[in-house]
């Protein structure tokens, strides 16, 4: 601690440079934490899913619908206990810039299929009674300041026109990876407005035994193999994962960008540290003459690098953690449960440590090994 004033005084020598270097580290680690949390959130979403639920989509692609007539045939398959269906809606709210996840579902069977969507009984009844009714997640309700009974109008993007729904229920997810800022409305309302009865986006099947999942999935796909709309059936986890891969190889992209940013900042920090050390060659000579040992000077330079990266890490990683938590950020509903986790903080901390070593090591070794007589030439 007795050397701290010396280290702080050195850091204060070029305040703007120190500030910019620290801010660069903070920004790099903030970006790293953000990008990595995108990856972990997508991965967590892909992990969600009951082993007793299968999802059947159009084999050509998820954007192509399946005939609603499949529902009865699916229900009749051995091992299938219940069937429901849903459709991605994709609307915008307000000035057209506010976006959140919106699904059209078969109300009764969907709520039975997903007990994780917790809804009071009277609100459930209201949702089942009224065709234009919708239920919304608690957070979505809070964000827009809506209330039960309020009419909400969305501008359809896939299904064009203005769509007005009446909020009849507010659900609370019992599992954090279930998005709590979705709007869910009735599939029959979509069909009626679009005058296209008879299609579903995808089917969800509850099966009797998770051990039979592969067999039942094959049974489903075999059933429709030669139809005009063949299916591709898999576990709910696989479906969620495929949803995630619609983003492309997000993990690789995010990790690559994150590491590139960190590497760029490493160069900036290392350059700043080396410039700072080079400017002080004469002072190193003075300190060595006073009796500061090579190791002590090594430690002082490393301490400087450590203070810069530690401060940057606290600001960047801590800032990311607090900011996303305080703002309940979820990328307009695409990344439910977005929260910088402990592993990301630990990896970020390790990167900060690496930054400290990489940026401080060269100037620290240089200061330690600098021959006093050579350094004295800067003094004389």
């Amino acid at each position, binding site marked *: 601690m*007795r*050397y701290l*004033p*010396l280290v702080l*005084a*050195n850091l*204060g*020598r070029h305040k703007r440079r120190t500030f910019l270097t620290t801010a660069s580290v903070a920004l790099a680690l903030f970006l790293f934490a953000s990008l990595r949390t995108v990856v972990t959130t997508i991965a967590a979403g892909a992990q969600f899913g009951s082993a007793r639920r299968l999802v059947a989509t159009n084999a050509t692609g998820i954007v192509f619908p399946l005939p609603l007539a499949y529902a009865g045939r699916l229900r009749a398959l051995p091992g299938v206990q219940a069937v429901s269906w849903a459709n991605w809606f994709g609307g915008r709210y307000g000035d057209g810039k506010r976006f959140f996840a919106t699904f059209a579902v078969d109300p009764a069977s969907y709520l039975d299929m997903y007990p994780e969507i917790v809804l009071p009984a009277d609100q459930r009844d209201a949702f089942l009674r009224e065709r234009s009714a919708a239920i919304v997640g608690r957070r979505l309700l809070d964000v827009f300041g809506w209330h039960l009974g309020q009419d909400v109008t969305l501008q359809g993007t896939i299904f064009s026109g203005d769509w007005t729904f009446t909020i009849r229920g507010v659900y609370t997810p019992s599992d954090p990876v279930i998005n709590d800022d979705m709007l869910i409305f009735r599939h029959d309302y979509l069909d009626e407005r679009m005058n296209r009865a008879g299609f579903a986006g995808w089917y969800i099947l509850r099966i009797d035994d998770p051990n039979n999942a592969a067999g039942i999935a094959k049974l489903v796909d075999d059933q429709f193999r030669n139809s005009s709309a063949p299916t591709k059936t898999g576990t709910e986890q696989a479906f969620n994962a495929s949803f995630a891969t619609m983003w492309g190889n997000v993990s690789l992209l995010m990790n690559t960008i994150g590491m590139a940013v960190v590497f760029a900042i490493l160069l900036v920090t290392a350059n700043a540290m080396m410039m700072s050390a080079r400017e002080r060659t*004469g*002072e190193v000579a*003075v*300190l*060595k*003459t*006073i*009796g*500061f*040992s*090579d*190791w*002590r000077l090594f430690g002082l330079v490393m301490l400087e690098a450590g203070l810069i990266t530690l401060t940057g890490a606290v600001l960047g990683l801590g800032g990311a953690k607090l900011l996303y938590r305080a703002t309940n950020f979820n990328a307009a509903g695409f990344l439910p449960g977005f929260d910088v986790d402990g592993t990301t903080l630990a990896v970020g901390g390790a990167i900060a440590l690496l930054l400290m070593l990489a940026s401080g090591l060269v100037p620290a070794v240089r200061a330690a090994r600098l021959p*006093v*007589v050579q350094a*004295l030439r*800067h*003094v*004389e």
Partner: protein
Amino acid sequence: MALVQIRDVYKSFQRDSQRIDVFTGLSLDVAEGSFTALMGPSGSGKSTLLNLIAGLDRPTSGTVRVAGADVHAMSAAQLAAWRARHIGFVFQQLNLLPVLTAYQNVELPLLLTRLAKKEREERVRVALGVVGLDDRIHHYPRQLSGGQEQRVAIARAIVADPTLILLDEPTGQLDARSSQEVLTLLQRLNSEFGKTVVIVTHDAHAADKAKAVLHLEKGVLIERAAVGA
């Protein structure tokens, strides 16, 4: 008894393909409690000699003993600790760390000791009092005159109560008045506090303040003159 004993010291540098011999068998004693001025033209080896005594540089051969210790038999770490305990060093210029106050600059050698903060503070105040700058303790070097800077550097050189004070052209950048103040201070440190002082200088006026003057010419001690007593 000699505080500094230099025996048969050879020192040579390699500059590109050329070998430069600075000392070829130099021997010299500096008595304890003396005030010695080392004079000579540029390139005569004055600063190199000072560096050898302080353990900042190593002789090619020969021995340098200070207070009984063979300076160059020590490892780098031992030498640093030894220097912190026995040597006070003042340069011609850029002695002080510009980001530290006078107080903090003077405190630097004490950071290497086990002294508590309060004891360090007492010592720093005494040292700055001795050099007459106790009213400038929180000033930064840029807020001090050249003479005041050198006095702070001297305060730093004496604060740990070293065995030997070495000064390399301490008045070289000062005006006559500041130079006089510094030289008077060095005389006082020698006569009142019994400090052994070795000063490298070009300035005959500065050398006049010393008790002994040594002349170096191309690495050879050519004259020994005793001044005063």
